[in-house]
């Protein structure tokens, strides 16, 4: 089976000289949910930014059998839906509805179809009431949910969620777990929230100093790296 994501020997150095990734090998297969764990600054966010071609370092990355090249970027970005660690950055259009419809419109869908999908995604994330509001006036948790809706509206094949549970209240986190369970897509969850990872992930990898220091089942990894309070 060819993996949905195949990353080999990915290395990346930021402009200021920080070596953030130092040879990462990673695969994601269909229907998997993989938790990326690891300390602050270990390179998790940097790594997922590579998967949509937002950063490019050394190494080879293939997504849905497409090589990471300028020509393939639109296709790759249509297949990977990414919710950023700082969801505020994700929102820039005047109203929530327009913001959520932004991705579908970029896919070339008609305004009507884009609106329909946006409304559906807002319903899924419990934010349909906020459709007409300005996204940057929302609370942190609400922004999170709108950002997720913006990605779901594109119906990607792979979901990448960077710290999706920060700012969420317990019921919202529970709803998110339920929602993600129902979604058929393969998922990458970058998280420090172990109960959340346990509820969803089929396996875990552990980042440390820009490398993958270990992988296995969540319980294995948590035990090996003593990754609980």
């Amino acid at each position, binding site marked *: 089976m060819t993996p949905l994501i195949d990353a080999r020997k990915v290395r990346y150095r930021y402009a200021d000289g920080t070596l953030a990734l130092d040879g990462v090998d990673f695969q994601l297969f269909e229907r998997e949910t993989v938790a990326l764990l690891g300390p602050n600054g270990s390179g998790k966010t940097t790594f997922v930014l590579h998967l949509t071609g937002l950063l490019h370092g050394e190494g080879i990355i293939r997504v849905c059998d497409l090589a990471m090249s300028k020509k393939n970027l639109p296709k790759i*970005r249509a297949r990977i839906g990414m919710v950023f660690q700082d969801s505020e*950055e994700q929102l820039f259009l*005047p109203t929530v509805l*327009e913001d959520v419809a932004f991705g579908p419109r*970029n896919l070339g869908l008609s305004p009507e179809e884009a609106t329909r999908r946006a409304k559906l995604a807002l319903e899924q994330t419990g934010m349909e009431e906020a459709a007409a509001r300005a996204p940057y006036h929302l609370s942190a948790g609400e922004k999170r949910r709108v950002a997720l809706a913006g990605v779901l509206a*594109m119906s990607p094949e792979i979901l990448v969620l960077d710290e999706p549970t920060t700012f969420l209240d317990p019921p919202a986190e529970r709803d998110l777990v339920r929602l993600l369970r129902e979604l058929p897509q393969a998922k990458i969850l970058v998280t420090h929230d172990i109960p959340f990872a346990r509820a969803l992930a089929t396996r875990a990898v552990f980042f440390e100093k820009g490398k993958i220091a270990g992988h296995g089942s969540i319980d294995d990894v948590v035990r090996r790296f003593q990754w609980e309070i």
Partner: protein
Amino acid sequence: MHYLVLERWSRGDSSFHRLDARVKIAALLLYLVAIATTHPFRWSAFAAFALLVLSGVIAARLPLGGMLLRAAAVLPFTATFAAISALAGDTDAAFRLLARSYASALGVLLLAASTTMPALLHAASSLGFPRILVLVLQFLYRYLFVVTDQAQRMRSAALCRGSALRRGAKRERFRAASGVLAVLFARSYEKAQGIERAMLARGFDGRIHLLSSPRLAWRDAAFLGLAASATLGLRFLLTISA
């Protein structure tokens, strides 16, 4: 969070606020053209046009004093030219200049104070304003919040850590302030970069595809009819009576 008065006013809830932004823009354009083409522009003309806008201000339940005061913000700019005319002995021209610019500013302010920026930009683009212009304005508006937000946060953080407690020498305070400004720009830049990344990740290709605009309601049409006939009527009356 934000203390932009205009932003707050524009989110008001009057039937004037709820009018479609497109008809408000159209009415404003007519009004500006009428002001520019009314000859001669005397006190009576100024009063008539100002009253027209003020009726809008009242309908929009905006603070009268605040509006009159803020519209005066244009005066320093035109005052220079008016002063030159006045010195050259043409006091009529000086008056015309000041009166026209103040009346125009009132009109623009009424539009801005009764229409949210998003609605305004949306309307501008559906009225066929150049796409690139609308896009730039849209980002300007978005980044305005990024910068003010960052500034606000940094200020709160500094206050929480007691920055107001110590009163250093002026020079030292100036140096600290300029350092903070540099960080503010760096942070805003990083934010802007993050926003760009998020846009790219959702397939942004340099064009924003907006959702279609709603249809005009009958009251929008009625407003436009009323505003247009009042403005044009005024203009003809003023020109004929002269």
